[in-house]
Every structure is written in structure tokens, then in C-alpha cells.
């Protein structure tokens, strides 16, 4: 069992975030463009940034470009990677123009670094996910190649979405490292690494399937973990099927293009039917090529689902964190109880528990009363310390549960809003596709009937 540093257990206090843009302004309004309403006042006096009256200044973040670069990696080997331009704008007044305040290039691995840092320092927060590292759920037309321009484009959007989510999170938006990510290109990696967060990371959290015999987990978290597992499963199943359906639909539409060609050729040998065939053929071509846009739109919808597929993992991580904390708590309590019992036994002389000392005493002779006294003393110290620690752990555990659950409630609402919107937009896409179909086939029908 790895000993986690004690200061990890309490909500961490990253350095206070300087207000963006104006050094002397009040607490920043680090509200991203996609903010889902005003962030709530939820932090206790713990935080150093106390005031929550966000000023009207808004921040806009965008990942506006992607560029292929070559460079040398850590092992001094040539590599090709994509860099993304992260631009930050601040808006003076509500309808005023936005001013570009910062602009720098980041690559995917730096985004990952940022996220990993956030995961460690905000274990009670459902941290927004990054877009997928490698293309999954592809159907034949999509490329699984990371350098493919379509993939890069969709990743660009995903990265922007990630930053906007972080910026609109009431707690995460104030993090200094996040602020520096947006504003300081050079040296940022070193600063992050200097926080030593990798060392503080609890490696047990990475062991996804390791089970801990937790006796009294908060039931809500157990249910939530179960839910996140199911959600992951159902969304990935959905994405897989959707990819296959897209593939097939593509086939249906494209084969109609062949009608276009044959009609056109046929029209050449016909007199009365010639014109009708030609125009009908043209409509078949229109039909065949309409699928490209349709499926591109659907891809964005799939990306929205994917975000929540990955969010489910983040949700799971919070639940796991609770489990671990609870486990440590229970272990500590158990340890304390056993020490107390040992102490009692030494004091009263009855040996109920097995201990090595007891054995050696039996083998090598009784200990002196002085030795016994000193042992009791040590134990009593340990017990007192343990009691304090247990108290602290208990407190931290309750704090964690409270804060985590607050964020989970926030997340749930966000999820319901977003997914509902996504599903509705899917319906809108289908409607658009149907309307196009009606138009094309009505036109074709007219051509046919005139033949």
C-alpha cells in the first residue's frame, strides 16, 4: 500500500490565480464563452480567492489552427507532430470587440500534461476529458491516421472544447497552471513538473480494476460507479453500431451515383427518353454526393457522444478516489483499534492478540516492567497520534464526499443538458437528410415521368 503524502488528502490550494489581463482588477471573470450559466459560489473560506463577484469581463478561448511540425523528441529522434494555436481573447464590454491577449502553440502531449495535473490536484472534480488520442470507431471512409487532416480538424475542435470546459468550471478555471497554459508558452512544462504532481499521484488510481475491500463506502458513489461503467458500455456500443450504419448508408448513396452514369450513357442512344434520362442521371449524382455532408455532420454528433464516453471515465475516477480514501480510513481505524487492544493487553497483562513481541517474550523470557512500561508509552503515543490522524482523515473524507458530490451534481446537469441537445441535433440532422432526399427524388420522379 503506497503511502500517499498527507497533504494530498486535503483540498489542494494551488497558488492564487492572478486576474487575467488586469493586474489590479478584482477576481477574474475567467468565464469561457461556453459557460453554462454563472459559476456557483461553493467554496468555503479555504480558498484564497474568496470573492466571487465575477466582473463582466469575459474570456474567449479558441484553438484556432493546427500545424504540422517536426522536431526532436526526448530521445533526440526526429518526429512529426501537430501543434495547435491557442488564442485567448478578453472582451471589455458585453457587445464590445474582443482583444487578443495571448496566443501560443501547444501540442497534444501538453494538453495531456495539463489534464493529468488537474486530475491529481482536483480529485474530487469530474475533470473534462481530452479528445481521443487515436481515432476509434472509424468507418471505412474515415482515416485512423493521426496525421489525417479530418482527424486533426476534429481533434482541434475537441481540444478547444476541453479548454472551454475547464474555463467554465467554477473551480478549475482559477487554477494557476491552467492560466499559465494559456499565457506562457515557454517553460510551462517545467513549471508543471516542478509542482511534483506526478509523485503525488496515487498510482492505485491507475489500477482500474483493483478492488479494495471497502466496508462502508458511500452508497451514492457505488451506484455512480456502476452507472459510469454502464454508460461507457452503452455509448461505446452505440458508437460502434453508428459507425457501421454510416458505412452502409454511404454505400447505398454512392451506388446511386452509378445510376447517374448509366442513365447518362443510355440517354445517348434514346430519342424521346434522352432528355429525361439525362436530367434524372444528374439528380442521381446529386443524391450520391449528398451523403458526404450528411455524414460529416454526423461525425460531430459522434464526437459529442465520445466526450461523454470519456467523461464517464472521469466520473469513475472520482468514485475510485472516494473508495481509496474510504479504504485508507478503514485501514487506519483498524490499525488504531488493534494498537489500542495491544495497549490494553500489555496494561492488563492478558495476551489475547498475537504479537511478535509476545512470542519472543515467551521464547526468550519475560520482559522487565520497565520495558513493558516503555512499550505502553510508545503505543499510547502512537494511539494518540493515530486518533488525531483518523480524525483528520474522517474530516477529509467527509469534505471530499461533500465537494465531490457537489461537482457531480453540477456534472449531471451539464450532462443531461448537453446530451439532450446532442440528441435533438441528431434529430435535426435526420430531418435535414430526409428533406434533401425528398427534394432529390421528387426531381428525379419528375424527370422519369417525362421520359
Amino acid at each position, binding site marked *: 500500500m503506497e503511502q500517499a503524502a498527507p497533504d494530498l488528502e486535503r483540498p489542494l490550494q494551488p497558488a492564487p490565480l492572478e486576474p487575467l489581463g488586469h493586474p489590479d482588477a478584482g477576481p477574474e471573470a475567467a468565464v469561457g464563452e461556453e459557460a453554462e450559466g454563472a459559476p456557483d459560489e461553493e467554496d468555503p473560506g479555504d480558498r484564497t480567492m474568496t470573492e466571487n463577484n465575477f466582473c463582466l469581463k469575459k474570456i474567449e478561448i479558441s484553438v484556432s489552427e493546427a500545424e504540422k511540425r517536426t522536431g526532436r523528441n526526448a530521445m533526440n529522434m526526429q518526429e512529426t507532430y501537430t501543434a495547435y494555436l491557442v488564442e485567448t481573447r478578453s472582451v471589455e464590454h458585453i457587445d464590445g470587440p474582443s482583444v487578443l491577449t495571448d496566443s501560443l502553440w501547444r501540442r497534444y502531449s501538453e494538453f495531456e500534461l495539463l489534464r493529468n495535473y488537474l486530475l491529481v490536484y482536483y480529485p474530487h472534480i469530474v475533470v473534462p476529458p481530452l479528445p481521443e488520442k487515436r481515432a476509434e470507431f472509424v468507418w*471505412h471512409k474515415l482515416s485512423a491516421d493521426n496525421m489525417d487532416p479530418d482527424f486533426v480538424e476534429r481533434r482541434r475542435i475537441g481540444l478547444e472544447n476541453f479548454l472551454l470546459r475547464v474555463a467554465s468550471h467554477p473551480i478549475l478555471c482559477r487554477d494557476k497552471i491552467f492560466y499559465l497554459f494559456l499565457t506562457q508558452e515557454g517553460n510551462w512544462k517545467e513549471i508543471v513538473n516542478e509542482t511534483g504532481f506526478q509523485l503525488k499521484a496515487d498510482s492505485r488510481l491507475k489500477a482500474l480494476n483493483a478492488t479494495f475491500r471497502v466496508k462502508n463506502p458511500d452508497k451514492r458513489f457505488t451506484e455512480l460507479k456502476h452507472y459510469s461503467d454502464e454508460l461507457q458500455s452503452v455509448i461505446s456500443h452505440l458508437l460502434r453500431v453508428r459507425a457501421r450504419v454510416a458505412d452502409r448508408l454511404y454505400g447505398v448513396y454512392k451506388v446511386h451515383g452509378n445510376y447517374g452514369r448509366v442513365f447518362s450513357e443510355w440517354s445517348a442512344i434514346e430519342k424521346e427518353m434522352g432528355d429525361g434520362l439525362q436530367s*434524372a442521371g444528374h439528380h442521381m449524382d446529386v443524391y450520391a454526393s449528398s451523403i458526404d455532408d450528411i455524414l460529416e455532420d454526423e461525425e460531430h454528433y459522434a464526437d459529442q457522444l465520445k466526450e461523454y464516453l470519456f467523461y464517464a471515465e472521469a466520473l469513475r475516477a472520482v468514485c475510485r478516489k472516494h473508495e481509496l480514501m474510504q479504504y485508507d480510513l478503514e485501514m487506519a481505524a483498524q490499525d488504531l483499534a488493534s494498537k489500542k487492544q495491544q495497549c490494553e493487553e500489555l496494561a492488563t497483562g492478558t495476551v489475547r492478540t498475537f504479537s511478535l513481541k509476545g512470542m519472543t517474550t515467551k521464547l526468550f523470557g519475560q520482559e522487565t516492567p520497565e520495558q513493558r512500561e516503555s512499550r505502553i508509552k510508545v503505543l499510547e503515543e502512537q494511539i494518540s497520534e493515530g486518533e488525531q490522524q483518523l480524525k483528520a482523515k474522517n474530516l477529509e473524507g467527509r469534505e471530499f464526499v461533500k465537494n465531490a458530490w457537489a461537482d457531480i451534481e453540477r456534472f449531471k446537469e451539464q450532462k443531461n443538458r448537453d446530451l439532450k441537445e446532442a440528441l435533438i441535433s441528431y434529430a435535426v440532422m435526420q430531418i435535414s437528410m430526409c*428533406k434533401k*432526399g425528398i427534394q432529390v*427524388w421528387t426531381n428525379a420522379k419528375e424527370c422519369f415521368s417525362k421520359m
Partner: protein
Amino acid sequence: MEEPLPAGGAGGDGPCALLPAAALALDGDEDDLELFSKDASLMDMNSLSPTMPTSPLSMINQVKFEDEPDLKDLFITVDDPESHVTTLETFVTYRVATQTSRGEFDASEFAVRRRYQDFLWLKGRLEEAHPTLIVPPLPEKFVVKGMVERFNDSFIETRRRALSTFLTRIADHPTLTFSEDFKVFLTAPDGELSAHKRQGPGLLSKVGQTVRAAALALRGVRGRPAEFEAMSGFLEAFSQKVGLLHKVSQRICKEEREYVDEMKELGPIHALWAELEEDLADTLQGVAGCLDRCCQATERRLRGLAEALLPVVHEYVLYGEMLMGVMKRRDHIQAELESKAEALTYKKADTELLREEVGKLEDKLECANTALRADWERWRQNMRHDLTSAFTATAERNVRYYEQCLATWESFLAAQSDLYAKEPPEDKP
């Protein structure tokens, strides 16, 4: 030889876009798999007494042609396929029911059982009697490769329809409809048909004809009139186009089938997800319902394609082959005449008989050309009509399909916006 289809619409790299003809090749391209083994003319069919004829109303859907609907006095249906198993072979018979008001028929209603070979016989007789008329094509003789069961239901159904079309077309043909063989086919009780069949030209004379035909074919035709030259040219091109059309249509059926199969899973997954959720459950259920309904609509669309478009296109593929035969026969007559006429120029004495023969052949050719010319026009009109209406109907079906799906999704949206209106709309970029 089919020429490859070059690239057409956008999105070039997908395997489905712009398929070369090879890729379009039917998996079940007709290979000759002998279905019937024995000489069935020696076999007696099960003699089944004619059943009660069906009402005229049921025959209306057989009527496809608009020419002279009021004057139709012969209605034919083909139905009720039955499998027969004997020690030597297995075959299917169909009930052929006729309703007529023609005087030359002894009664107004008939019902007989016929098997494929009988249809084949009828076709042969008609072609023999009218070599340059366009006799309608029969569905293929042999089983499509890849079918496990020789007589699976869908194969029989497709064949049944095609046989029905075959007979109706003959009935609608101004000349063929009065063929004696046709009448016998429709009316003769089952045992009698075999007897009538044996009355045809003997085997030996058939052989003789074949030899002569081969010799003439080698010789070829000297001067094919321009109009038939044009006809032949058109036919070749048309056959090729229609063949491609058929392949494309089949491919679309295949792709749609696979699309439906995948799509069937989509609705249930959303329903499953709905069970996990509280707030989202309604929306998810709604989407699941829409997907299921659209899936069903797609199945209907697919069925329409397979049942209404494919058979028509296929028939014209067969027509193409058939018409080549008609052109050949016409050429053959002309070649016969030319060879006899040539012989005449070399003969000095005894020309009387030969001259007579040549005269007869000239008449024969004249008749043949006239018959073909007229029938060709008629065929062209029918072709235009049939293919046009088949594609128009397909387009109509597709419009209705999209309209159904549209209605489904729109009503879903309407239901959602009632709930949605209560929440403040999000600002979307």
C-alpha cells in the same frame, strides 16, 4: 463484356463509389447449374383437376399495359406453385388460370397446371411460327448459383411473377395472342398437352434445320437494310445499358439490405441507454422509437425495390438477349434468299422451280421485315413505358420513404420542444 464504370460522384475513395463493373458483379451470376436431369417429356405430370378459377378482380394486377385496356378479352394469372417429387426428379407446377370472352375458346374460364418446361415449349413454338416477332422472354432456366435450396420460396415467387408477365405479354400481343399453341397451352387438360407437344416437327427435321442454319450463318448476310442495321446497333448498346442498370439495381438492394441489418440495432441501444438515465430517458426513448420506425420504413422501401423495380429491369435484360435472336433469324431469312438468288444466277436451265422458290423467299423476307418493323415499334413503346413507370414508381417510393421518416423525426422534435421550452435555450456557437 461490360465496360468499367468510371468515377462519378464525390468522395472518390470509398469502395462503393464508382464501382468498376467487376465489383458490381453479382455474386450469383448465372452459371449453368443443371436443375432438371431427365427428359421430362417422357414424364407425366401429376394430373390435378383444375381448381375453381379466381375472380377477374384478382387478375387486374396482372394487367400492366395501357394499350387497349378496354379491348382486353383475355386475362391470365399464374399462381399456386406446388412442388412435385418423383423418383427421377423434383419440379414445380403452377396453376395457370384464364378468363376470356373470346368466341374461339370453348368456355369462359380455364385452369390448368403447367411446369416450366411447358412454358419453354410454348416459347419455342411461338418463335418457330413467328421468327421475326418479338416473343416475350422467359425467366432463366437455371438456378442462380449460390442458392442452397434449389426451390427456395423467393426464387419460386420471382419465377412465378415472371411467368405471369410472360403469358400476359403474349395475350396482349396483337398476333401472338391468336396462336393455336397458345390456346392449347392455356386450355388443354394436363395429359393432353404432352400429346399435343409431340405433334411438333420431328427431331430429324430439326436437325436438318440446324445444319442449314449453321451453313448460312457462316455465309452471313450481304446487305442488311439500314433500318435493321440501326436496330441492331441500338440493341447492342441498349442491352449493355440495361445490363448495367440491372447490376446497379441489384447492388443497391444489397447495400440497402446490409444497411437495414445494421440499423436494426440502433434503436434498441438507445432504449437500453434510456434505462440507465432519469432525465434523459424520455428523449432517448423518443430517439429509439424514431429509429425503429425509420428502420421499418427502410425495409418497406427495400421490398418495393426488389419486387417492383428489379423484375422489370431484369425482364429487359432478357429481352435484349431475345431480340438479338430475332435479329439473327431475320438475317437468316435474308441470307437464305440471297443464297438461293445467287444459285439462280448460276443456273442456266431448270430455273422455273428455283425462281419459284426465290419468289417465295422474297415474300417471306418481305413479311418477316414488315412483322419485325411493326413489332419493334411496339416493343420500343412498351420498353419506354415499362422502364419509365418502374423508375417513376421507384422515385415515388423513395419520396414516400423520406416523407415517413421526416414525419417521425418531426413529431419527436415537437414533443421535445414542449419540454425544451421550459429550459432556457443554450447559446450555441
